[in-house]
């Protein structure tokens, strides 16, 4: 069996599920209203602190709101270590923790008709996946069947983050939920 988190994988169908392979991710814990965080993110790549349940993006980089005192920076995988160190340095005077966690997680993307993409998610997460409840850029940390995950929709595609050790399981879940034979016709 290959390493889905590292090598990626694809299950094609009306909704195609991709395990994207390595994705740069930096966890940052800080008070969201700490000005040091705002300036560190701006300095890092013109990023801003996202509001609750949302995200901000600047080019290839994005910041996901993970909780009242936690965000995750998405960036190119190869840049993550350097950016993480840079972020730590700019936050050095503040009470904050930044760490490269790119290898700790796997990232997936579901592409296809948006209603079907949302339906596939709605089979696995108790979070409301309707367009008004999960609009573009809304970030939900939730549960995917039996494991933790985070989901958001961007440009009609669903992005899913889960822990690396469960990558096979999550890929299996998404593939099953997105199967062409299992359309719900709800959204």
């Amino acid at each position: 069996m290959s390493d889905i988190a590292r090598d990626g994988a694809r299950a094609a169908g009306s909704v195609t599920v991709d395990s994207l392979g390595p994705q740069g991710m930096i966890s940052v814990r800080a008070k969201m209203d700490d000005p040091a965080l705002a300036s560190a993110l701006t300095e890092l790549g013109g990023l801003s602190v996202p509001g609750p349940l949302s995200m901000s993006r600047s080019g290839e980089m994005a910041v996901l709101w993970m909780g009242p005192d936690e965000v995750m920076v998405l960036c190119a995988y190869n840049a993550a270590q350097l950016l993480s160190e840079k972020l730590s340095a700019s936050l050095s005077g503040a009470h904050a923790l930044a760490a490269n966690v790119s290898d700790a997680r796997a990232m997936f993307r579901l592409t296809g008709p948006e209603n079907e993409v949302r339906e596939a998610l709605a089979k696995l997460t108790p979070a409301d996946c309707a367009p008004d409840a999960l609009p573009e850029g809304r970030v939900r940390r939730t549960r995917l069947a039996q494991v933790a995950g985070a989901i958001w929709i961007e440009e009609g595609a669903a992005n899913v983050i889960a822990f690396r050790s469960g990558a096979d399981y999550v890929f299996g879940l998404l593939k099953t939920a997105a199967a062409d034979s299992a359309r719900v016709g709800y959204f």
Partner: protein
Amino acid sequence: MSTRLAKGGRLIDRATTHRFTFNGRQMQGYAGDTLASALLAGDQMLVGRSFKYHRPRGIVASGAEEPNALVGLGSGNTFEPNQRVTVTELFDGLEAQSQNHWPSLEFDVGAINAKLSRFLPAGFYYKTFIHPRPFWKHVYEPFIRKSAGLGKAPDKEARDPDTYEHFYAHVDVLVIGGGVAGLQAAKVAAQSGGKVLLIEQNAHWGGRAPVDGGTVDGAEADAWVSATLEELEGMANVTLRARTMGAGLYDHGYATAYERVSDHAPGSDAPRHRLWRIRAGQIVTATGAIERPLSFAGNDIPGVMLASAARDFAVNYAVSPGDRTVVVTNNDDAYRTALALKSLGLSVPAVIDARANGGGALMAEAEAQGIRVLKGKGIAKVQGGARVTGVEICAQAGEGATQETIACDAVAMSGGWSPVVHLWSHIGGKLTWDETENFFRPDPERAPITHDGSAIVTAVGAANGHLGLSEIVSDATSGTTSALKRIGLSVDAAAPEASPRDEAPMEPVWLMPQGAKRALRAKAWLDFQNDVKVTDVQLAAQEGYVSVEHTKRYTTLGMATDQGKLSNINGLAILSQALGEGIPQVGTTTFRPPYTPISLASIAGEAKGELFQPIRRTALHSWHEENGAEWEPVGHWRRPFAYRKPGESTHDAVTRECVATRESLGLLDASTLGKILVKGPDAGRFMDMLYTNMMSSLKPGFCRYGLMCSENGFLMDDGVVARIDEDTFLCHTTTGGAERIHAHMEEWLQTEWWDWKVWVLNVTEQYTQIGVVGPKSRAVLEKLGTEGIGKDDLPFMRWIDGNVGGIPARIFRISFSGELSFEIAVAANRGRELWGKLIEAGQEFNVTPYGTEAMHVLRAEKGFIMIGEETDGTIIPQDLGLHWAISKKKEDYIGKRAQERSFMDNPERWQLVGLETTDGSKLPDGAYAVAPGNNANGQVNTQGRVTSSYHSAALGRPIAMGLVHNGPDRMGEVIEFAMTDGSRVPAKITGTIFFDPEGEKQNV
């Protein structure tokens, strides 16, 4: 005989024939048939045997409430027992078998039980089979299991090939039931603009109205249903779902619905069932009502069915229950059956109306049609065995003397209606007894409530006790309007005009005739599925059962798969009469989800096969898999227990791995160990509270082994802490402990020390961590270009950042084996690469990957404890001789106060020692050391137990550790351990360090 009529049938498509088998008999029906209608069309009136007396039983109902007609469907991997034929849509190739008969449905040996019915009264299990005791298990229970019961369990080797799934939906209003009330409710709710989900358990919409007739909004009910459906289908905010039953209601607007996606179309790739998990702002139950049987002798003989079922089969499926159908009733509604059958050209010899004055307009219409109506009469008994041949008529007011016998093939009975209040009751909605209609209806004053105390469920239509079309649409309109208001949605909806109810009042008839003699009562069934008769409930009352809940369990009334949908009210009416109390005073049993049985597979959803449970894999998992790993589950992780070479036993593999590691070089995948970052100005202070030892004094670049206790003082985790910089610590936890300890840290930070400046982050999965262990460990790392790891550059319990084989790595010089040892942490995506390099470079050192068992042996040889082996949640560090790791200087740490309690700070506690058997045998893990005498329970006294036991490869003999009373003071003493075969094995108490007590091997 029951048969198919030449014309009609609003739900069937005569152009499409489906073939099916019943007990191997070839039969056929049409598309749109249920299995019930197809069986009746083929004159298969006998469909099963009863639970206790094995009496012949036929189809009683036309819907979800059917108690009798349960069959096994399919075969082999798709066999499923206890399927109700009335809700099974017919498909081509369907296979059904009747249940609870032996040797055959027509000739059944168990029917002898019926002759013995006087000896099988209510509670007979308890009365008859208690003594002598051993007979229960060996004689009575096997007999009862064979004789009484419903369907067979599927074969244990069978594997369900179908798929199942869940679906989460969030709506403003969930409407359950797609009859006129539900459709009107959905229509009103839809006008608010809110999200509406309307579900219907059947494949078709409209409920009873299309059969029962009447007009809504100037149109025939049927036409109104179609038009309303079309309107709703066109609305973007409305979802309609047929074949989807409201299964259960729970707190906070959570509801489950059971969609039978492809039961009717087997062989499709679609999931078979889908369990909807719905969050609704408001729930409207429009679940209709269920007709009640009447209790007269022989009311269970095939051919006796509910009046509503008789007209459903006739109108919906063009199936006649018989050429001549006698209708027996206590209300006007059953006249609709007489009129429907008559209009189809069938004979209705009589309507027997228990009411002295008969009914109203519907009776007049029946009489005008030439149907004979007998008023104030009842059925004394039904004639016939395997099917109805006639009825004996008596005065309802009398004891059952036969006045007249009427030959017939079927009896259509109606004892009135009961609103389907199940869902309302699931979450605590209360009921009120309606004296006019003689049923329990939802009490709107005591509706199920949600977090703010407001009602969250609204019952409408027949489910709310309204039985006329006009009342139903008006109730659905006002009820839904109020429900919407509670979630801030408003509509200005008016109820359409509809036919008003024009019926004479019903009269309660709980027993027919009223004064029926015992012989008749003993053949008057209350609960068809569980074979409970009027006499059984009366006996229970006589024997002192006054609570309806107790009577239910004593008599089995209302139990099993139908949960008393037909029997409940009749049974408790009989009980209340026997007790001389009113029905509302006796009350009902509690309805619980699901409304009707749902498949276990739908509850499991996708969790089967590969997806049954998430298995956590390290980045090296595939290498282990390809190299003979025998797996050990540790939490949700899979870790290699040992790597077996071809032809090698597990024991030999473990020994080989131990020897190679001690002599040269072993590799361990330690990635599963938890890694938690703790950072902030208060991190040192926080660490001092978490661990029993002093952590704040640790210098950057250093490592320290630490113990973590719960606030009750018990040892909960251990591991090596590395100080990264002035503000940052990296805590290693046990494999199973990462998430738990992370949560423990967050809890203390969030609830107790919320003002401390500390952040924690679980980075466990970021790293592949590899133990490079053994005398050649430094050599292999140096061969891979690692610098700065010499004896003095990197002493024991230090760490550095460096690289191994060109891969950036954090190198810890720590040891869980007593050997010279390094743990190398690299980014997980490069873990496999590093492992490959170590294997390759290690060839000259006989590099040997080792599993968890070798790891255990190596640590036990050194007397290192293991959380979960030496600890079990009741052990404190002091029990394990770990005083050295408990700071005396610190004012406090989590667990300190608890450890000062008298029974914790106590020399009588068992303490850790080594154990060496005098006969050289290996002690069983968990074996107890015996002490002289017996305790108060007559059990042998104990003085210790084995916590770890292994075969030591290094010493060539077994070693063990255990907790022993005053153990450390009893070195050299021999104590005895009890074996499960009764023998005793003597073992000498020793120190816990069996190998290299001076620690010379790791200090090189």
